[in-house]
């Protein structure tokens, strides 16, 4: 009954363009949760996979929307600042891949651990960094999350180990974090991310071997965005079934554009790890709108049509928005309000990031050693 009333109301607004009728709506009119059918995962060495019918609550949906929108806007602002030369050096943007970071974080605890490569701004945010300190790090200011000393690729916060510049090096590190979890018996796990390009690194296979041998609680996640810099997966890998590359490690191939798919698969993977079964591998099929980095326009090795097609058919934020609206879990206005708030947060953060002073020169030689006095620089 309520649903049909609100549908009528919505129809009225569309015809009249009037806001008056909408102000009568209360949150009690929204569906508090709905069940969604999601894509089945491809499985490797697994009898069964994650559920394909999942529940999302209104609160969860709004939260995922807000976080993804924040990440999206933050990356687009970084693009702007880079073009204005306020951000320098490397800047690898994550827009398009938001569902991965958000879906993963939704399935683990902040007390779990996560490590990724250099396309890390989104994860720094989901792991607890603020937009302000992320942007100030990009602009190299003292208020940055690493006091301006790390930059885009070297952001850290509690239980988040960066931000790593050397392709593939983060994978053994992640397994090491997992070893520490197992050693300390704290039931925590480590999510260890790498890209389709990194997936061909030898040290990853060394890590698969040790993680499986020692049953380390690590979730290996390959974010396959189809291109390792300018090289498509077909040109780089003899086998593009990245979820199978762990061979003896069970694997899942997941629709990385759907936050619910990612969440469900990550939950499944986390259960697997926490039950002592050892590592598991997830391939998230995702896409980046930007080029590899800000110095790559991203259209010499792929077509604008391809990019546009993904944007129009598979954008993670649009997909979530459609789900929320068509299941009456949120209103257009509500989501617009979130957009406005996000925009403001990003603007404020950018303002901070461009006005905060650079680190003091006295900091130059600090932080070489822990629990040591500052060293004199060699003259």
């Amino acid at each position, binding site marked *: 009954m309520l649903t049909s009333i609100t549908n009528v109301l919505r129809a009225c607004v569309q015809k009249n363009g009037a806001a008056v009728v909408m102000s009568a709506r209360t949150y009690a009119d929204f569906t508090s949760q709905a069940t969604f059918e999601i894509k089945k995962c491809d499985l490797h060495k697994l009898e069964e996979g994650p559920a394909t019918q999942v529940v999302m609550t209104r609160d969860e949906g709004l939260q995922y929307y807000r976080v993804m929108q924040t990440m999206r806007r933050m990356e687009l602002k970084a693009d702007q600042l880079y073009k204005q030369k306020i951000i320098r050096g490397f800047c690898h943007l994550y827009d398009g891949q938001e569902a991965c970071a958000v879906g993963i974080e939704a399935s683990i605890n902040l007390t779990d651990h996560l*490590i990724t490569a250099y396309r890390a701004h989104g994860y720094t945010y989901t792991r607890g960094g603020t937009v302000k300190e992320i942007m100030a790090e990009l602009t190299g200011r003292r208020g940055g999350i690493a006091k301006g000393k790390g930059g885009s690729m070297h952001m850290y916060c509690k239980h988040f180990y960066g931000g790593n510049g050397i392709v593939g090096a983060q994978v053994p590190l992640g397994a090491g974090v997992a070893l520490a979890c197992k050693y300390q018996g704290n039931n925590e796990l480590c999510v260890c991310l790498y890209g389709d390009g990194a997936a061909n690194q030898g040290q990853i296979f060394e890590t698969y071997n040790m993680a499986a041998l020692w049953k380390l609680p690590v979730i290996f996640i390959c974010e396959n965005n189809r291109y390792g810099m300018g090289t498509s997966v077909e040109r780089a890998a003899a086998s593009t079934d990245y979820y199978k590359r762990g061979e003896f490690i069970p694997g899942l191939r997941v629709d990385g554009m759907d936050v619910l798919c990612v969440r469900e698969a990550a939950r499944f993977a986390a259960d697997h790890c926490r039950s002592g079964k050892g590592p598991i591998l997830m391939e998230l099929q995702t896409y980046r709108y930007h080029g590899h980095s800000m110095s790559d326009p991203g259209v010499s090795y792929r077509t604008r049509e391809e990019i546009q097609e993904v944007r129009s058919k598979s954008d993670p934020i649009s997909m979530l928005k459609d789900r929320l609206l068509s299941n009456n879990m949120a209103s257009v206005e509500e989501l617009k309000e979130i957009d406005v708030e996000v925009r403001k947060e990003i603007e404020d953060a950018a303002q901070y990031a461009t006005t905060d002073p650079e680190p003091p020169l006295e900091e130059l030689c600090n932080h070489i050693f822990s629990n040591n006095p500052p060293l004199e620089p060699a003259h």
Partner: protein
Amino acid sequence: GKAVVGLASRKHQRTSGPVEVTVRDALNQAMDEELERDERVFLMGEEVAQYDGAYKVSRGLWKKYGDKRIIDTPISEMGFAGIAVGAAMAGLRPICEFMTFNFSMQAIDQVINSAAKTYYMSAGLQPVPIVFRGPNGASAGVAAQHSQCFAAWYAHCPGLKVVSPWNSEDAKGLLKSAIRDDNPVVFLENELMYGVPFEMSEDSQSKDFTIPIGKAKIERQGNHVTLVSHSRFVGHCLDAAAVLAKEGIECEVINLRTIRPMDVESIETSVMKTNHLVTVEGGWPQFGVGAEICARVMEGSAFNFLDAPVTRVTGVDIPMPYAKILEDHSLPQVKDIIFSVKKTLNV
């Protein structure tokens, strides 16, 4: 450079007095004591557990501490070094053994980019309390790929401490310090020294005995020339000094103990007294430890006290040959040190 004195009180070893301990056993004791002291310490590397260590340095530790604390790894240096660094980031205190430092080259990215630089890049958020240890430099007859000295390579990098013990006290005290240090330490042992016994003082037998990283030791006082060395060649310097003493030349022998941070002050103080400096190392000459010492002395207060240019005695600038006669002539010998001292003193 073999030591030392016979023991007066062998029967009463446990209760008092100095004892003879090989470098191997000193390292073993250091690890045993630190494993016992702090639960977060663990050892990983190839053959460290069930084989008792490729060179038996970790003998008995697996039996005592088990699989959790003493971990045999597959032959995957880059992988297991990275795992060790990750474990250090997450709160443990790993000792990562390289069977020899030649193999560390495969893992060097993890040592430098993941371990050494992280505390700085994170502006102090993420310390990496790890020790990378293993034999470094030439052995005997193991040829070019297994004989390289990595002191200069690692000591080049900020964020690392690089330690190079000579005798048993050095080995024990410095390894304990390295394990207790909250920073990445590269601990360069020497295979030829493992079996050499040295007298260890009573103090050095205490479970709390540590030697500070970054401080050199004057092994022998002298007035005429300063000899600076590290690791095995400290012994060669002492042998040369004994021979030269008979001719009235008194050498001051400095055992660096730590390559980075280097105790330049001790070197300068000595040079200001002796006015002559000879450096001795097993590594290659270019960009080496001796080259750094020359630069630092030239830049500092001791320069004006030099009566002659510094002489470097180093390994020959070639890959290590196999044939014994060639190998012997690829590394500093006592006679080379004596020759260099006399040349520097112009006698």
